[in-house]
């Protein structure tokens, strides 16, 4: 998005489609995990970590953050009450333990006795409440809907009348703080929601700083609070020092961090122009760690001072078929979509486009998610003959010009993708070439991401086929992408991510039961069963060619110790990192 902004936006999805999971009613969260260093050597103190980013941060206010760069800094200076396991995404206690009532409606939290702010004050339930109140007061947050199921939140929050916010209450009735223990509180929901535990992580903000923006008389002052860009009190491993706009964010160690002071003195978030600059900076030693591109991998592996870590991305790149397209009615036929799956050699495409650094996808969930189906799915191995047979079965016959036609209409399609994203542009070209071999008059057409997003989410029929990517982030709930209610409808003026127009009653039911089960069972096993059905339907119907899930390639100086990034978090144990001199 340029590639830069694009990556930020798509990656922003990671922080937003939040996780869920093993939230068994009546279950009890485990103790906070103890990070372990990747080496048995005694960590050395001091030094500085420089992480490279290709986007500057936008804010240091969690309730306003909508991008991954800002989230990185926020996660380094503010701890949440819960966290996701960095490898499998399971929600776990962080600053607080949690339990869920038998009816699945009430979540109880107790904040760790050691959890404190950098000014010495304890982190208490009121701080969590300050965060959720700030969301309620803000006019510019994108998180209001995350709390709509909290009892009394809609009465408290301020917004347009259509949003459901009435602003009539002074408190959020569903949040109860234990009068005997200020570190204990409970949150009552209006309905069972399996993804709720992740949303309820909320934003624990220091009341001594932000409390003044969420008083009864406050309006939306929180949106412009000076502490949003220069915070003063912290609960995370690092303390904010300076934001040199467009250049770097400087954090100093928090010596009073409740999990133990970090080993390094400073953490710098350094903005660079692109991933080529990251690769160069790693080679020169100016950068401690950063993500690299597949095309640079072979070169980086020859650098003695750099170690490469790979892990699977929580997302995938796909080709969507607009099953409602008036110009390509063929996409409405399941056999045609299946033919388009068999008719592209995705393994070869992966080699050509991302140098083999990806895994072929044939359904929605990716292998690192617990919802990834256990039962086998149709792998859609490249089979040109089968693809041609399916097209013939669907009534498409090659004409004298070699192009498939049916009822006098030729099979022509345009695959759009966002311009500036080299990987996707190449994929579009390769896919168009391979589909031409089937007799389809396929073309690729790059288009600016800004315009493309609007067309997709508003259901513009001009989009026939499109390449884009999802970053699935935390929760496995696919409601926003695949539930039929999310299909944009231009006539009704509704928008959504269901831009294939594909719907299936059984799939809707599986999604609903995985999200708001009628029996209240939010256990992993119960939800996984629903997602087996869901993925099987998608696998059979192929509204997307599900493309591939990329590997994330991380380059780091070999001197960086205890560095152990995972699909769900790269900095989960940052306070234990150390620099070997």
């Amino acid at each position, binding site marked *: 998005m340029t590639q830069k902004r694009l990556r930020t936006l798509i990656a922003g999805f990671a922080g937003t489609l939040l996780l869920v999971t093993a939230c068994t009613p009546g279950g009890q969260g485990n103790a906070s995990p103890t990070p372990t260093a990747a080496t048995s050597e005694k960590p050395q103190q001091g030094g500085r970590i420089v992480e490279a980013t290709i986007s500057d941060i936008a804010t240091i206010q969690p309730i306003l953050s909508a991008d991954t760069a800002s989230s990185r800094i926020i996660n380094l200076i503010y701890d949440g009450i819960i966290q996701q396991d960095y490898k499998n995404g399971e929600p776990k206690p962080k600053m607080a333990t949690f339990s869920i009532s038998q009816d699945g409606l009430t979540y109880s939290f107790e904040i760790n006795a050691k959890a404190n702010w950098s000014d010495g004050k304890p982190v208490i339930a009121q701080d969590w409440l300050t965060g959720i109140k700030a969301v309620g007061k803000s006019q*510019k947050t994108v998180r209001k809907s995350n709390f709509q199921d909290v009892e009394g939140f809609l009465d408290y929050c301020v917004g347009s009348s259509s949003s459901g916010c009435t602003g009539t209450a002074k408190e959020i009735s569903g949040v109860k703080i234990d009068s005997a223990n200020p570190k204990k509180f409970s949150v009552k929901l209006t309905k069972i929601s399996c993804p709720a535990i992740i949303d309820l992580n909320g934003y624990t903000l220091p009341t001594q700083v932000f409390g003044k923006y969420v008083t009864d008389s406050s309006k939306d002052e929180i949106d412009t609070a000076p502490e949003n860009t220069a915070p003063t009190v912290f609960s995370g491993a690092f303390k904010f020092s300076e934001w040199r706009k467009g250049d770097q964010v400087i954090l100093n160690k928090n010596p009073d961090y409740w999990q133990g002071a970090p080993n390094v003195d400073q953490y710098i978030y350094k903005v660079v122009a692109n991933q080529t600059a990251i690769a160069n900076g790693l080679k020169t030693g100016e950068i401690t760690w950063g993500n690299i591109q597949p095309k640079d991998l072979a070169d980086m592996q020859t650098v003695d001072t750099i170690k490469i870590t790979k892990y699977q991305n929580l997302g995938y790149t796909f080709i969507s078929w607009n099953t409602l397209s008036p110009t390509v009615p063929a996409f409405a036929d399941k056999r045609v979509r299946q033919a388009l799956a068999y008719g592209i050699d995705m393994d070869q495409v992966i080699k050509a486009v991302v140098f083999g650094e990806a895994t072929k996808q044939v359904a929605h969930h990716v292998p690192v998610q617990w919802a990834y189906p256990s039962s086998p799915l149709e792998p859609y191995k490249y089979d040109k003959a089968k693809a041609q047979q399916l097209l013939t079965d669907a009534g498409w016959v090659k004409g004298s010009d070699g192009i498939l036609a049916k009822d006098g209409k030729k099979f022509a399609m345009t695959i759009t993708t966002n311009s500036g994203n080299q990987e996707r542009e190449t994929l579009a070209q390769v896919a168009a070439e391979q589909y031409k071999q089937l007799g389809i008059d396929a073309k690729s057409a790059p288009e600016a991401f800004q315009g493309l997003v609007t067309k997709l989410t508003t259901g513009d029929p001009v989009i026939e086929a499109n390449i884009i990517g999802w970053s699935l982030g935390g929760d496995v709930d696919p409601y926003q992408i695949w539930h039929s209610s999310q299909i944009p409808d231009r006539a009704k003026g509704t928008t959504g991510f269901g831009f294939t127009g594909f719907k299936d009653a059984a799939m809707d039911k599986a999604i609903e039961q995985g999200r708001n089960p009628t029996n209240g069972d939010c256990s992993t096993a119960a939800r996984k069963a629903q997602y087996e059905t869901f993925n099987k339907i998608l696998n059979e119907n192929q509204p997307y060619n599900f493309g591939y899930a990329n590997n994330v390639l991380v380059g780091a100086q070999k001197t960086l110790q205890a560095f152990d990034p995972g699909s769900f978090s790269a900095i989960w144990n940052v306070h234990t990192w150390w620099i070997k001199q």
Partner: protein
Amino acid sequence: MRDFIIRRLVYAVPTLIGISIITFAIARLSPGDPIRLFTFGIKDFTQEDYLRLLHAYGLDKPMPLQYVDWVTNIFRGSFGESLIYHRDAFVMLMERLPNTLQLALVALLIQLIIGVPLGVLAALKRGSWVDGAIRIFGVAGHAVPAFWLGLILIILFAVNLRWLPSIGMLTVGHDQWDIADRIKHMILPAFVLALTGIANYSRILRTETLDVLAQDFVRTAHSKGLRERTVVYVHALRNALIPVVTALGGILAALVGGALVIEQVFSWPGVGQFTFQAAIAKDYPIVQAGVMFTSTLLVLSYLLRDLTYAIVDPRIKVG
């Protein structure tokens, strides 16, 4: 002269109004919706949320009304609040301006220090291999794409030789006032930014110097028995430099506007990079503030150039 200045200033007003309309129209009419863009993929983000944000940023008003709001707010000293950063767009731009100015001024200095002597040398050695070499350098300076040269220089001097840094304007952890470190970071980007200017100056100076050397007063100076050095450097060069001096204002503005590519290649946190990223994200207030600022700078610098012309050459009158 006062009338001249006033008249030129009056002429600048419709220009700036025109620029403001074009800037606004291009930013707003380009495809895409900024709210949809920065909320793409946000969990549980509803149509109601979308409408709330549209209203909060004033994007739900008719386009002409948005333009009037924007212009009115400019006169009140605000270019609007960034949709992404939630801060005043112009203030954010000004935070980055010193970085771009540093780069532009140093590049300008390099252009003059290298370009002027090269041009004079080429004129004095007209037809020789030196003249040919300078000409080739000039053509290459124009032809080589800045981004390509920047990357090659990074690989050579930063990655392979490790003599110079590859990114940013200061080594991480160094004090903001570490001048030596700052200079080290500036060498490569400033040189690449200056290259086209060096080629320009050497070409202009060569032509001008040859032109002046052929004039009567130079012949007179020679006939008076003055030394060659005095004739060239005191009499000829002073006259040959007039077009260079008068063009300085415009060139500085062009450097500020043209630093975009260099800022991208060298991760230099300047105005160009910032505005470019804002354009990608459709952050209207920043894009509009950035384009208006650069355009105003350009208009003012042309005004300055005309004034300089009028001062150094009284024959020039305003039309």
